């Protein structure tokens, strides 16, 4: 072996070792700080994209849930949690692996998956294994369809389309509506389909729509020109905030200034790096969570999140935070103890969830309820961006 190769080998070996050391502490931080013995804390597991393109959603949910767990454990009540998130890379196949890893860890109750497609995979397994799941943000109706023990904390996609169409019709926000949606995305397609159907019923004038995909989300000039030629005065954007931010800046560059209407995926646009909040002035969106809300619970959550992670939480974080507290409420109501098996907890939770009314960060003050199918009922908040901040819209 010549010396150069030996050096390369040694360096690689050293790196692996150091990574192992770092990794050890990293995984320690990922699970709950309090290492409780079996039977004293509920083992709460969830999968989400912690790495890769969709990782902002997974990390937000993980962090939101972690804050809730830390708060609850610090209070030292009867209900204690041990939280563990596994990475699913926004891939249904990896999500199955992540779910199985959590099962080996001894997960008793589950936070499902953060994103929809993996959520469909893991919820089917949840149903088979009898592990109760409450997902913070997997919003496709397929996640809960046909499963009696999978519940959602977020609105389902069609509900968002429905609510958006009704809102636009009630407030008479636009004469000519144009939709830009992402054709290879479950979330975007789900909202857009329902929106179109409802717009038809309500007599809204949808003058056209244009699509993009993950591979083509770097330029929207074509779609914007189409919208401009159709003389649309309201652009409906059922998409996540990164492509939306580009649409806003490109529309401004071409001197096209319609009204913009987004859904909950638009939330987070103001905290995006290198984004000029002035561009989002006047953008309207429906979202269950508003980081600028005045109430005490929201402010305390946002403050803790900012201190710990250095950014403003998006609605995924708030949904996950609410999930943990909803579990706490349900477990208290049903009188569950951490030494119960996953199957017993599953039965108890199935009984309890449709009966409780939960008040959390998301939804308006009226409280959040679930029906027996697992769908959530809460009202979205209409927000408009004014002076770089959300303001309530009525």
């Amino acid at each position, binding site marked *: *072996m010549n010396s150069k*190769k030996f050096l*390369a*080998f040694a360096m*690689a*070996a050293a*790196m*692996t070792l150091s*990574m*192992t050391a*770092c*990794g*050890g502490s*990293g*995984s320690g*931080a*990922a699970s709950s700080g309090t290492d409780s013995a079996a039977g004293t804390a509920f083992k709460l597991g969830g999968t989400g994209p*912690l*790495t890769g393109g969709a990782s902002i959603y997974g990390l937000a949910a993980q962090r939101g849930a972690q804050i809730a767990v830390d708060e609850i454990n610090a209070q030292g009540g009867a209900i204690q949690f041990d939280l563990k998130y*596994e*990475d699913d890379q926004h*891939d*249904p*196949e990896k999500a*199955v*692996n*992540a779910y*199985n*890893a959590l*099962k*080996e860890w001894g997960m008793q109750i589950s936070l499902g998956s953060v994103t929809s*497609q993996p959520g*469909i*995979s893991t919820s*089917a*397994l949840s149903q088979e294994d009898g592990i109760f799941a409450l997902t913070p943000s997997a919003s*496709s109706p*397929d996640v809960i369809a046909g499963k009696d023990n999978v519940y959602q904390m977020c609105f389902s996609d069609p509900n968002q389309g429905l609510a958006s169409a009704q809102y636009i019709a009630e407030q008479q926000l636009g004469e000519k509506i144009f939709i830009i949606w992402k*054709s*290879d*995305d*479950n979330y975007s*397609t*789900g909202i857009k*389909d329902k929106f179109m159907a409802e717009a038809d019923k309500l007599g809204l004038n949808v003058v056209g729509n244009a699509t993009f*995909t*993950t*591979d083509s989300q770097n330029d929207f000039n074509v779609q914007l020109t189409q919208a401009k030629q159709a003389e649309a005065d309201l652009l409906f954007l059922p998409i996540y905030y990164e492509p939306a931010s580009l649409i806003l800046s490109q529309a401004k560059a071409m001197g096209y200034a319609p009204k913009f209407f987004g859904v909950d995926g638009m939330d987070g646009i103001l905290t995006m790096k290198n984004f000029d909040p002035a561009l989002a002035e006047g953008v309207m969106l429906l979202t269950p969570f508003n980081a600028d809300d005045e109430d005490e619970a929201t402010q305390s959550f946002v403050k803790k999140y900012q201190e710990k992670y250095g950014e403003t939480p998006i609605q995924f974080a708030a949904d996950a935070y609410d999930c943990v507290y909803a579990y706490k409420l349900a477990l208290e109501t049903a009188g569950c103890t951490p030494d119960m098996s996953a199957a017993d907890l599953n039965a108890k939770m199935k009984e309890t969830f449709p009966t409780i009314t939960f008040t959390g960060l998301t939804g308006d003050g009226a409280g959040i309820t679930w029906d027996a199918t697992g769908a959530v009922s809460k009202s979205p908040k209409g927000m408009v961006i004014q002076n770089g901040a959300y303001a309530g819209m009525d």
Partner: protein
Amino acid sequence: MSRVVNRLANMNKTTRSSVFTYALVVGAFVILQLLRMTTGLGSVLEGQLIPICAYVTMALALNLVVGVSGELSLGHAGFMSIGAFLGCAAANGLAELIPFTPVRLGVAMVIGAALAGFFGFLIGIPVLRLNGDYLAIVTLAFGEIIKSVLTNTYLAVDKKGLHFSFLTDKNALEEGGLQLIRGPMGVMNTQRISTFTVGFVLVVITLVVIFNLVNSRTGRAIMAARDNRIAAESVGISVTKYKMIAFVTSAALAGAAGTLYGCSQTTFVATKFDFNTSILILVFVVLGGLGNMWGSVIAAAALTILPEALRQFADYRMLVYAIVLILVMLATNNPAIWGFFARLRERREEKKGGAAQ
């Protein structure tokens, strides 16, 4: 016993390698099945068994193109996705007609393989006539095109028959209709019909097909065309024909692997089978050694398990994965290790020589 050992020792190299590969696959299957029946494998490995079988088949299929016929394919995930989408659509659509799942899965695999093979044939007609890296370029484009097409395809079935629409879902279904392919939402299986045993059978069938092809007159013609195109043509070998045989066989096997994979998942989308997946399979082949079938089997299985085995490293998982890959590449190309094996072989030869005297 000693006679068996003797025969093994006297076998020629290719036969020995085939026997070793079969023994490896069958041995692994038997051990895993025994473990499953007694102590259990643990949820993680248990859940990965079928994907491993699918990836092993993919690696073997690609090895036929890259290692044996010497062409480069960068779009094998495209053939896998054809098998996955159309095979699963067939499996779901035939649910009432063929209630017995292994037969239904078998039929679905044949359909998936046939369609993938057909697309392989279509691509091969123009491309395999050319001399150069054109297959790599065209298969790369093919993978992307198939991804876009499947993302915009809506296929459904009801009493009236099949419904198909493109770009937007215009299928008006009667009551009891079933959506088979749902555009960007991919395929959702009503039940997961793939089993580990079927996966094992597919791997064995793949090995039988590949070894019989490679060790036949056709296989020697394929390799002759790979090693020296002009020399092969000069002795009357139709290079296009033989490259086509290898490529279509490989595409069909990839289609069957896709069906196996698709039917093992609750849901999957077309973007799963992107360029990265094609490259991942190419990594299996390169790591296992070009033309080395047992190497592909081991590399595919190991590299599928590895990222899951590294879960304890949390955020550093993929970094460690990359480093392990580099280490393996360095180690397998290391002259010191090669020298060690060469010395072992020499010693054995010496012994044999000594015994004969």
